[in-house]
């Protein structure tokens, strides 16, 4: 993908810029629903996690779940946004079979969270600042199954009423990569906070992507003036349910729009569906009808008023978030901004790294994690939390490598052993005699033996000092790989009268 992921598309009439905004629906992690006591657990029998409130039976009334409010506040704080101490729940009215009330209780004019921002760390080291619109707390709809019967759709309300955060970015992204990075970063933030599990497969996090294209320079003018007239007409692509699909959908959609405009057509503002099998977007006919949601404050609820002290308590209890963790990793561990960005992208990975790096060379730990551990996890299709070798065991291996107990080569072997057999790395090194030989007399003995056995090579090295590597290899072979390479070098130099540095 990455070769396509530039900010401009070369068209026949010149360069086009891609402008992207994202709307993410993130289900709040809570035991019970926003306005009823039914469970939010995924995957239950049809309509079993449904109360009379969720089914909108006559006379049923909503009562709000305090924890869901707290989760929304937490998320707002994580997006560096202002928390509004007075917010109002509105009804958004429309008919759909999986919307039992005929309206969604959401927020419109006075939401709970104000504007915020998300920082994206790109591969090239650039940091993109994406502005965030106010966050709305509302209810999720149920689900309709369309593939159970040729003539009928089946409606399941288990998801109906689950708390939902509507998290919307400003159109501040410029490439499919940035769009994917946004989703990844937002997911990391809510997972750090524990306010959403970010599970895109189960639909607890869903993204709609707004894509438009404009002639080169249009975006700059938009940012300068705030006027949308400098941007093209946008299309909203619904329910793009993975980072990869976000990238592919943006790529496809931007090209489609450029082709239409260059072919003399105009872009119609519309809702489109991304089809991952065909890798294309297509118009959703059902969403074509002009909407008039008739928002008004829900008279079954009173305005939501938060005490500042309560908000302050939540603020004080926030965990360290990716941006802060990244800064700390750079400062405390001296690792690169890019490495730190990758490590903090997933809280579990960052935690793993921190434990691994405790008391050892942090840069070596970062390299070890990136090159050895992640490589093996990737090979085995495992996530960091499933690593067969714990962070503590990796820490022990790095420690032994650092104090020359084992060589780098043996450390990798050791990792493989613990990976497949388990066990304590320190004990394994002890039991299997993997300790590095640093005893000079033993090394001298081995060096002398190699010199004695290869007089021709000794002659050769006088002319070609690079041959020293060959000697090191022979000595290592003699010592079963356990000789300390630095010590071997030193002895060789002395014995063969090699120049200072070679």
């Amino acid at each position, binding site marked *: 993908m990455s070769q396509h992921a530039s900010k401009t598309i070369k068209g026949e009439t010149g360069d086009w810029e891609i402008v992207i905004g994202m709307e993410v629906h993130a289900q709040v992690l*809570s035991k019970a629903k926003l306005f009823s006591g039914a469970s939010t657990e995924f995957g239950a029998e049809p*309509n079993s996690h449904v109360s009379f409130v969720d089914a909108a039976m006559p006379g049923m009334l909503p009562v709000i779940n305090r924890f869901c409010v707290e989760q929304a506040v937490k998320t707002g704080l994580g997006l560096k946004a202002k928390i509004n101490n007075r917010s109002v729940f509105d009804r958004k009215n429309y008919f759909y079979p999986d919307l039992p009330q005929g309206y969604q209780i959401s927020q419109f004019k006075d939401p709970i969270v104000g504007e915020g921002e998300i920082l994206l760390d790109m591969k090239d080291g650039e940091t993109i600042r994406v502005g965030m619109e106010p966050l709305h707390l509302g209810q999720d709809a149920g689900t309709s199954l369309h593939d159970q019967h040729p003539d009928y759709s089946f409606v399941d309300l288990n998801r109906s009423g689950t708390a939902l955060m509507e998290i919307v970015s400003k159109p501040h992204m410029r490439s499919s990569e940035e769009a994917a990075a946004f989703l990844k970063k937002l997911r990391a933030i809510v997972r750090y906070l524990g306010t959403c599990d970010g599970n895109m497969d189960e639909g607890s996090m869903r993204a709609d992507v707004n894509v438009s294209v404009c002639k080169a320079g249009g975006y700059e003018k938009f940012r300068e003036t705030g006027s949308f007239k400098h941007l093209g007409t946008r299309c909203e692509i619904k329910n793009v349910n993975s980072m990869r699909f976000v990238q592919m959908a943006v790529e496809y959609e931007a090209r489609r729009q450029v082709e239409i405009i260059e072919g003399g057509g105009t872009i119609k503002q519309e809702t489109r569906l991304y089809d991952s099998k065909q890798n294309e977007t297509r118009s959703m006919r059902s969403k074509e009808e002009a909407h008039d949601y008739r928002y008004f404050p829900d008279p079954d609820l009173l305005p939501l008023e938060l005490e500042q002290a309560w908000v302050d308590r939540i603020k004080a209890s926030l965990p360290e978030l990716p941006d802060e963790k990244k800064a700390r990793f750079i400062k405390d561990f001296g690792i690169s901004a890019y490495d730190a960005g990758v490590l903090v992208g997933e809280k579990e990975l960052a935690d793993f790294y921190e434990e691994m790096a405790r008391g050892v060379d942090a840069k070596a730990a970062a390299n070890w994690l990136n090159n050895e551990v992640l490589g093996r996890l990737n090979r085995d299709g495992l996530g960091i939390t499933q690593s067969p070798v714990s962070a503590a065991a990796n820490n022990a291996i790095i420690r032994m490598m650092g104090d020359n107990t084992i060589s780098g080569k043996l450390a990798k072997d050791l990792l493989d052993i613990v990976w497949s057999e388990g066990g304590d790395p320190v004990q394994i090194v002890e039991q299997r005699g993997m300790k590095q030989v640093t005893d000079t007399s033993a090394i001298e003995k081995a060096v002398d033996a190699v010199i004695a056995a290869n007089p021709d090579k000794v002659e050769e090295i006088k002319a070609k000092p690079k041959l020293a590597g060959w000697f090191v290899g022979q000595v290592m072979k003699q010592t079963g790989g356990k000789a300390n390479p630095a010590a071997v070098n030193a002895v060789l130099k002395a014995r063969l009268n090699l120049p200072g540095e070679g």
Partner: protein
Amino acid sequence: MSVDKDTVRRIAKLARIALEEERVAPMERELNGILAWVEQLQEVNVEGVAPMTSVVAQKLKMRDDVVTDGNIADAVTANAPMREDNFFVVPKVVE
């Protein structure tokens, strides 16, 4: 303000109430009768007046995050005009 026939049709569509064509004109008359009568509200000076958001001075009640309901799929679907395996069944929805 008053409504015309197109507006009546549009509102009926929004409200999902079938309105036969011969009912459009009478409905237009009835709605305009009511709208003409409520027109007198325009003479009230409401500048600086906050719209009423709650009738009683009461703080919004909040629940704890505890599962207290559900697992009543039979009762939830008992009144359904059409159901199958505790699903509600509707004519096929095209997306």
